[in-house]
């Protein structure tokens, strides 16, 4: 039997250990992944989460951060809805998580950037740092820029600049069709395409500039019929996920054999759907190149990822940059305090797995990085996508200096 004094002593010890537990050095640094894990864009979201968790494992194997704390990436499903994302953000803050990564949909990003800024102002003790790995609406690092937001992907303007260089180099090109999803990103792509083509090749006629609802179109055949009828020689599209897949499928079915200049036409079933019909015709702008893999470390990482997830591919190399730079910043700051980590991220340079040197520009928190043009093909492909034998081959590289675009950001610092 315990007498009362021993019982109180024991209870006190248990209570003390419970209180002390969250402060333990072994406590993981949690990172909330707010992206679609259900609905039409679930495939993109799920594979993004797996890539983040894979990189986290890599960092943990190498010793984690702050002398032994591990990184843990936790998925929060937002169904690509801005409203749902805000609910998830509240949960994240309630769970005392200090880092949020998000990438799918600039519509969501626009909601998050505001909500995070407001939260950080109102609740200085529960601040959150928002790391955007793929939402590329230029306004996020221009007029809407925020101290609490960092973007680890080239924005739509930087990407369009590289794409239109390729288009402009083709002297036979006379007519272009632009099609995109009807939200901030699709509009940003269309605007950038019209502007860049207008300055580089004013003789190219834009024969169509179309926006369709995001994630709602069941069959793209009517759009393909329209593109065909317009007499376009090439298509520019920022479509991603199910919308890119549907567009590629319908184009293939209708035998539309003109070049496609895209942002996201690869992986998650898209490469397989494009198949033989798109060889040498579908081009994509992106960052890390799998073919050729450029460095042994990058090839090794791709191989090990494939071994773990045989049905998946490493489709978003920027996830690796995002998490590694966060880990470096946490180590540099010596803390997980979002304000200190943000300060450490500003101006930080990092050497990517594939050998690029990238820098986080302090003035607008836009990563300065080389941008590459890839072509869909089955020749010289070491790492194919969708186990289809087809993959992306690097065609040209735009250096970080050349890819850079100016910013209008006037950042309020903390």
């Amino acid at each position, binding site marked *: 039997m315990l007498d009362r004094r021993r019982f109180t002593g024991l209870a006190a010890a248990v209570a003390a250990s419970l209180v002390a537990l969250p402060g333990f050095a072994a406590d993981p640094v949690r990172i909330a992944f707010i992206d679609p894990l259900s*609905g039409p*864009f679930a495939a993109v979201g799920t*594979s993004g989460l797996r890539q983040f968790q894979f990189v986290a494992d890599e960092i943990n194997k190498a010793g984690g951060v702050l002398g032994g704390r591990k990184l843990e990436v936790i998925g929060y499903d937002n169904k690509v809805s801005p409203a749902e994302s805000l609910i998830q953000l509240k949960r994240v803050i309630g769970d005392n998580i200090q880092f949020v990564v998000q990438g799918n949909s600039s519509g969501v990003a626009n909601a998050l950037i505001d909500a995070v800024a407001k939260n950080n102002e109102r609740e200085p003790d529960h601040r959150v740092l928002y790391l955007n790995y793929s939402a590329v609406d230029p306004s996020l690092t221009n007029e809407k820029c925020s101290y609490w937001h960092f973007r680890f992907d080239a924005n739509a303007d930087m990407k369009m600049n590289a794409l239109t260089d390729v288009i402009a180099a083709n002297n036979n090109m006379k007519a272009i069709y632009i099609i995109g999803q009807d939200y901030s990103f699709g509009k940003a792509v269309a605007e950038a395409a019209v502007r860049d083509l207008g300055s580089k090749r004013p003789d190219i006629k834009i024969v169509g500039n179309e926006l369709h609802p995001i994630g709602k179109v069941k*069959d793209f055949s009517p759009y393909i019929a*329209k593109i065909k009828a317009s007499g376009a020689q090439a298509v520019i599209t920022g479509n991603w996920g199910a919308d890119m897949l549907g567009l590629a499928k319908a184009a293939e*079915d209708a*035998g539309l054999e003109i070049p496609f200049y895209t942002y996201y036409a690869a992986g998650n*079933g898209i490469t397989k759907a494009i198949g033989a019909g798109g060889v040498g015709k579908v081009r994509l702008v992106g960052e890390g190149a799998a073919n050729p893999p450029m460095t042994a470390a990058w090839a090794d990482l791709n191989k090990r990822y494939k071994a773990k997830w045989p*049905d998946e591919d490493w489709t978003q190399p920027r996830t690796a940059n995002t998490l590694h730079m966060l880990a470096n910043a946490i180590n540099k700051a010596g803390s997980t305090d979002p304000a200190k980590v943000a300060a450490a991220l500003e101006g930080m340079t990092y050497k990517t797995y594939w050998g690029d040197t990238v820098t986080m520009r302090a003035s607008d928190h836009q990563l300065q990085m080389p941008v590459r043009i890839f072509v869909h093909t089955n020749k010289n492909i070491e790492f194919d996508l*969708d186990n289809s034998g087809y993959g992306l081959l690097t065609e040209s590289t735009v250096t970080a200096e050349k890819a850079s675009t100016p910013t209008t950001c006037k950042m309020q610092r903390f």
Partner: protein
Amino acid sequence: MLELTVFSLLNGLVYGLLLFMLSSGLTLIFSMMGVLNFAHASFYMLGAYLAYSISTKVGFWPGLVLAPPLVGVLGALVERYGLRHVHRYGHVAELIFTFGLAFLIQESVVLVWGKQMVDYHEPALLAFPLFSLWGTEFPAYKAFMLAVSIGIFIALFVVLTRSRVGLIIQAAITHPSQVAMLGHNVPLVFTAVFGVGTALAGLAGVIAGPVLSTFPGMAAVLGSIVFVVIVVGGLGSLAGAFIASLLIGLLQTFAVAVNYSMKDLLAAFGVATSRASMLSDLYSVTVAQIAPILPYLLLVLILIFRPTGLLGKREV
């Protein structure tokens, strides 16, 4: 322009007839049992996934034959052991039951087949362009879809209007208790109709899967539109569902092809609109951009001006 018209017509027909296959089962179930089956599109998805699994083992054609009956049996079991028990608690309970069922099927599909799109594709036999007009190809598979849908319509029509079974079903729709009084097993008729209805949804999934992609979100994208079809067509009217499906299919397809906006309409009447106007965003929205909401607009108009639907006999 002719080129665009012809292909819009063909695409609209393919889409419209697919909608018909989905909505024919739904309208029968609704008119007979008064059950708004929210899980109907989930059976459609199930059809596509089952056919995919069968096709990876023994090919597309066995999948086409086997998957719809499988879905139908599943539907019949759901009616016999689920819906029938819930029925006595009224329509709200039924509604919630099918609503929950939709989630259950959705999550089961994700558990079994994963969140990624599965590679369900048309058979090699039909993977060729049937004909080429002005350089645009029309895939043979779409022609096959057209043929199957029309075949189903004719078969359903004949069974419902010319056969004894059809007679009993028709009677059970309007006078269930009298039909039971005459010695017919009305609950069995209900189970059978539910089974056949879900089997049709399954068949729609089997043939639509390769074209519209087979992924866990496929039920959600068609889920709401089928309700529009049965309301516009008139509840319980097969011919109405047929007309409404085609109407909505063509409406959506042709709307995509039209680039005119309110601004152009106003300009035709000599009214100039300035870009600075508060409403300039509204004026410049093209018909193509609002194509996906047009069916819902049609739904609202029908409910206001003809609550019975195009060919329906009773109010919604």
